[in-house]
Each structure stands twice: as C-alpha cells, then as structure tokens.
C-alpha cells in the first residue's frame, strides 16, 4: 500500500509532466525570432563570435 508521501510524489510527478507540455508564450516566440545572437560567452555555443566587421 502506498504511503501518502508516495501518492503526493506520484501526483507531483504527473503534474510536472503536464507542465512540461505547456507551449511557449507568443511573446517568447517573437523574442526568439527577433533576437540577436549571443556571443557564446557561456562556452556552450563555441568560441566568442568574431566581429562582424572582420570579414568585410
């Protein structure tokens, strides 16, 4: 038999799973599409981008 804590946990798991189905707000979609690329300073997207002037 499940304890109340187990039941809570299962329901929290289900609820959070439902939250993960939440669509992105329109404002975020617009911000993403309008966004200027970041410079990769966090190291997750490769080295910092060279100056756009470099190629010209």
């Amino acid at each position: 038999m499940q304890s109340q804590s187990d039941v809570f946990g299962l329901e929290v798991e289900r609820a959070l799973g439902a939250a993960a189905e939440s669509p992105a707000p329109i404002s975020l979609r617009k911000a993403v599409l309008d966004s200027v690329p970041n410079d990769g300073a966090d190291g997750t997207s490769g080295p910092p981008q060279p100056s756009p002037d470099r190629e010209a």
Partner: protein
Amino acid sequence: MSESDDFSGFVDAHLDPVYGFAAARVGRDVADAVVLDVFRSARHTFDRGEGEVLSRSWLLTRTRNRILAHWRLVAERAEPDSAVDAPAPEVRIGTDWNPDQVLDALDCLPGAERAVLALRYLEGRPVAEVAHMIDRPHVTTQQLLAKARRAFHALALPTAAPTAAPV
C-alpha cells in the same frame, strides 16, 4: 528557402518542447530567460554556418546546463530551511493537471522548493543526490521536499486550502 526561414522553422519545431522542459523545472519567468538565451546561442551557431549541429538534443543539453546553474544559485542563496508540518491537503488521484494551473503553482513556490521538486520528480534524482546538490543535510532535504509537495498541492489544487501556501 532563405536562411532566416530555416531558422524560423527550427524555432517552430523545437521552441514549445524546450520551453515546456524549462518551465516545468524553473517556472515561467526563469524559463523565458533561459530559453531565449539558448535560442540566441542557436542563432549564433546557425549564423556561423554550423546549423547542421543544431538539434533538439543540442537545445535541451544547453537548457539543462543553464537550469542546473540556476538551481546551484538558488541553493546558495536560500536560507537554511526548517521543517514545517503544514497539514496535508487532500490528495486527488488521477487529477487531470492543467499545465497553466501547474505553472501558476510553481511560480508561487520559493526557488528552493521548486528546485527540489524538479530535481526529485522530474529529474528522478534520489534524495541523497538532491541534498548534495542543494548542499543541505539529508533530513533537511527530506523536510524541504515534504514542505514543497504540500505547498504545491495546496496551490495547484483548487480545493486545497490556500493558507497552506508559502509566502
């Protein structure tokens, strides 16, 4: 198709699941910032002509890294918590959870409580590992989890007593 259209298609294909992944873990406000930052990185990669490396996995890995960094920050800033034996709200089994309702509840929880719920129930990490990640004793982490579960239920279930919600 122009490059801009290509990136737009990439956003259309992946934004919702990546946002949902983040929002369920850190709430809407932080998710907005995290997801925007990750897609900016993607745009940067795309503009470098390396769009072939971009994928759902690429996005989720970077989203997850940022979320982990956020949780570490939350844990560092959180005051040591004491156990609160709030009365347990009624648990309704098989509730059809509404995503907005759940996110509303998550947004009302303190960061540390949101973090432990996500670490335990979305990431599936054992309590000992959660305790290590938030730098709290095992027992304190169990108490924080119990408090977070109760507060979450009180907030997320319309029939639960709102007074059980944390300030």
